[in-house]
Structure formats: C-alpha cells, structure tokens
C-alpha cells in the first residue's frame, strides 16, 4: 500500500501542471544555447578532413555509435539542417519535429569536437540542449492532459545532475583528499601555468598563497554542487542557488579558466510566468495614468 502511495506521489510530482510560458522559455533557451554553440564552431564538419593519420585513431565503434560514417559533403548538408532545425525550434515552428531533428543532429555532431580524444563531449555545451530538445519534442503533442510540465522538470533534473555528479565525481576519484588545501593550490597554480596565464599575476595564483582559503573554496564548492538538486523540490531555494550558480561559474572562469557554456540555461529555473505577470502589471500601471491624461487632453 505504501509503495503504491509513494508511486502515486512521485507521479504527481512529475506530472504536476506547469505554466506554458516556462516550457516555452526552456525551449527557447535550449535552442538558443545550441545555436550559439554551433555558430561558434562553424567548421565542425571539417573535422572529417583531418589527416588520415588522426582519423585512423578514432575507433570504428565510436564512429558507428554517433553515425560518423558519411562523407564530409553530406555532413555539411546535415550541419546546415541543424542550423535550420535549431532556428525553427527557437521560434516554435513545427516544434515537435524541429526539436526532434535538432536533438538528433546535436547527438550526431556533439562528439565531433572531442572525438580525437574522447567520445564523451560533456562540458562542451551540447549535452543538455540535445537531451532537453528531444524531451520537449516528445512532450509536444495535442491532448496532453498532464501538460508539458514533466518535460521541463526532466530537463531541469538533467541540469541539476551536472552539479551533483561534478561534486560526486570529486569524492569518487579523489576522496576526501580532494578537499585538501594542497590539492586546490596545485589546481590553481597548475591550470594557470598549463593554460598560459602565468606570465602576469592572476586571481588564482594570488589565492593559492592562502591554504585556508583554498580549503574553504573546495568545501564550499563541493557542498554547493551536492546540494544543487534541492532546487528541484524547494522552489524558494532557487532564489539562493541560481544567483550562487552564476557567481560559481564566473568565479570558475576567472580563477580556473573553465568556461561553462550552459550557464544561461540556469534561466530554465526562473518562473517566467511570474516575471511576465509583473512586466504586464508594471506596463499596465505605467500606461494607465498616461491614457487618462491623453483622454483628459483630447476632451479638454
């Protein structure tokens, strides 16, 4: 009985209705994010024109997995199709099909950027747009009594997992030693040097002088990452966690030189219905008195 109750409660959580504007905003953010990335890597299909000696090191199984089997000319046509699909998804044109096409093509092209090293192109910005657009495509149909809220919630879950598993992976690979000041000091200094920022003083290099600050950064960062999924269940926490996440990414960029291309997708957690209601309310109140003055003037 309890198991059935629990199952029903879980279903109620996932299938709870959601304002349509929040799902639309998510679709726009996912498509815009994907479009920004592919417009920033315009020569990605050209990866297939690499020297044979490099291409030969890509295992055939990986090429099959992502269907990287076609000649570069066809890949360029598909690349154009991806642009069109993302644009259509952005503007809500044939949403079901444009989101499906964009998601599938992002799956195909996503690994191009890293395939000479790894078939796992996470943290290159296309993972969440790929999955999110596919999920929105699956949810887009007529007669959806549950509303498409589950699609937004599922995409938000995938996004929250970025933080949680980034935190978990540190404990998985490094254990509690990862939190040590020494580890953080080496990261701060080593990344500065490896990435060519050591010629001039940097924030990271300065911070590395203070072991206590380094440990604190590690502990706060880890707790923040592990706790982020709470925003899925406690909406009020979003007021704290979302600005913190933006700060976290800006700090990561400045200190560790790590850029998170999906930072804008944090806006998927904003209640756009609430924002729109306030914008409309404010506009109404701004226009109200103005109209009255116009009426007074015209009648006078």
């Amino acid at each position, binding site marked *: 009985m309890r198991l059935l109750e629990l199952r029903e409660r879980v279903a109620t959580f996932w299938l709870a209705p959601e304002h349509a504007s929040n799902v639309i905003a998510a679709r726009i953010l996912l498509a815009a994010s994907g479009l920004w990335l592919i417009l920033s890597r315009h020569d990605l299909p050209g990866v297939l024109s690499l020297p044979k000696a490099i291409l030969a090191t890509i295992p055939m199984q990986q090429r099959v997995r992502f269907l990287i089997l076609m000649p570069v000319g066809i890949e360029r046509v598909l690349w154009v199709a991806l642009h069109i699909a993302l644009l259509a998804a952005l503007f809500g044109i044939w949403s079901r099909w444009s989101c499906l096409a964009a998601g599938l093509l992002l799956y195909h092209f*996503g690994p191009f950027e890293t395939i000479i090293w790894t078939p796992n192109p996470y943290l290159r910005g296309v993972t969440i747009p790929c999955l999110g657009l596919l999920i929105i495509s699956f949810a887009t*149909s007529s007669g959806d009594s549950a509303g498409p809220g589950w699609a937004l919630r599922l995409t938000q879950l995938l996004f929250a997992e970025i933080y949680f598993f980034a935190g978990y992976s540190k404990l*998985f690979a490094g254990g509690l030693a990862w939190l040590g000041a020494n580890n953080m000091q080496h990261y701060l200094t080593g990344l500065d040097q490896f990435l060519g920022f050591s010629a001039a003083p940097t924030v990271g290099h300065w911070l590395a002088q203070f072991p206590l600050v380094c440990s604190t950064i590690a502990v706060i960062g880890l707790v923040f990452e592990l706790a982020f999924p709470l925003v899925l269940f406690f909406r009020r926490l979003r007021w704290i966690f979302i600005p913190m996440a933006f700060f976290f990414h800006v700090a990561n960029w400045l200190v560790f030189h790590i*850029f998170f291309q999906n930072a804008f997708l944090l806006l998927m957690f904003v209640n756009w219905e609430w924002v729109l209601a306030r914008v409309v309310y404010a506009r109404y109140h701004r226009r109200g008195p103005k109209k009255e003055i116009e009426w007074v003037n015209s009648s006078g």
Partner: protein
Amino acid sequence: MRSFLQPFAGAKELIRLGAFLLFVALGVSIWYATGPARRGAILRLIAYVVAITVLVGFTQIESWPFTNWALVHTISRAKMNRWELIGVDGAGRRFEIDPQAIQPFGMEEFDTWMRRDFFRVDAGGRLEVARWIIDRAEEARERYLKRGRIGTDGWLLSEAAAPHHFTRGLVWRSPRDVPSDRFVRLEIWFSEWDV
C-alpha cells in the same frame, strides 16, 4: 566495474548507442499513446532517464549524452606537462603557435591526442600530421595579420563566439608574435615542470 567490462570493449559503444536509441524510442512512444496509456508512457520515459543518468553518474562510466559530469575531480599533480608547437620561419626564427590555430578543437583535445597517439602513428603519419599543423598555423598567421583573428570559431560571432571549455591565454597578442613571412618548419617540444 571497468575491468569487468573490458572483455566487451568492442560492444560497449553499441550498447551506448542502444541506450540512446531506447531513450528516443520511449520518447516517441508517448506520441502514439492516449489516455492512461499516455500517462504510463511518460512515466516510463522519466523512469528510464532517471535510472540511466543515476547509473552513469554513480558508476562514472559515460554513455553520452548520458554522462558522468566529472570536472577537475582527480587529485592534482605537482608535476605538469604540455606540448608546445613551434613554427619556424624562413630566417630560422621560432614562434610558438597559438592553439587557436587548430580550432574547432580546443587545446585540451589536441594536446591529449598528441600525448596519446602522436608517437603511436608511423613516421609517414607523423609527417602528415606535422604538415597539417604547419598548414593550419600558416592559415591562422595570415588570418591574424589580415583580420586580427587567429582561429576559425569567431567567423560570424567574432568576440561573442562561445569560448572553449578551458580558456587558453593568448599566445599571439600582437603582430610581433607572428612572423611576417610564412612558416616553413615545425618543431614540437614537450615541456614538463614542477607546479
């Protein structure tokens, strides 16, 4: 877990493809379901996504687009190393090649390929790769001197183009950092240092 999966190395990529195709199939099945069946189809997709992402996350075995999200997760090393690509002009002057020359790859990707694979390919292959690098460096040099842009990423969005995951400090900061004449030779250096 990793060693357990080793004998299936050939099939694991196909299993990962299968995991993605199953996700698509479950999603598409929602389109064709109505009434209570639709509710069931939605919940099946949600259960599958939760299960596979949790499995991938906790085992840290990727199945992209379901992925492990590991980031600066290992214990950092006191020693670091890096490949440096040096272009040599006709007068024998050496210039470090800006990693933006090999876009759309980021420095991380190409550096890792160099470490892992460069000396595994035969001499002819290494020469082919070296020629490709020098050609890319030459194109980047010309682009930089003509348009002030090193890589190909910013052709449309210019400075608004998405940076790579690891941002690399600029190597070519002014026209003085590149030769006015073309690169004629490539040197590849491997540096190692204490952090």
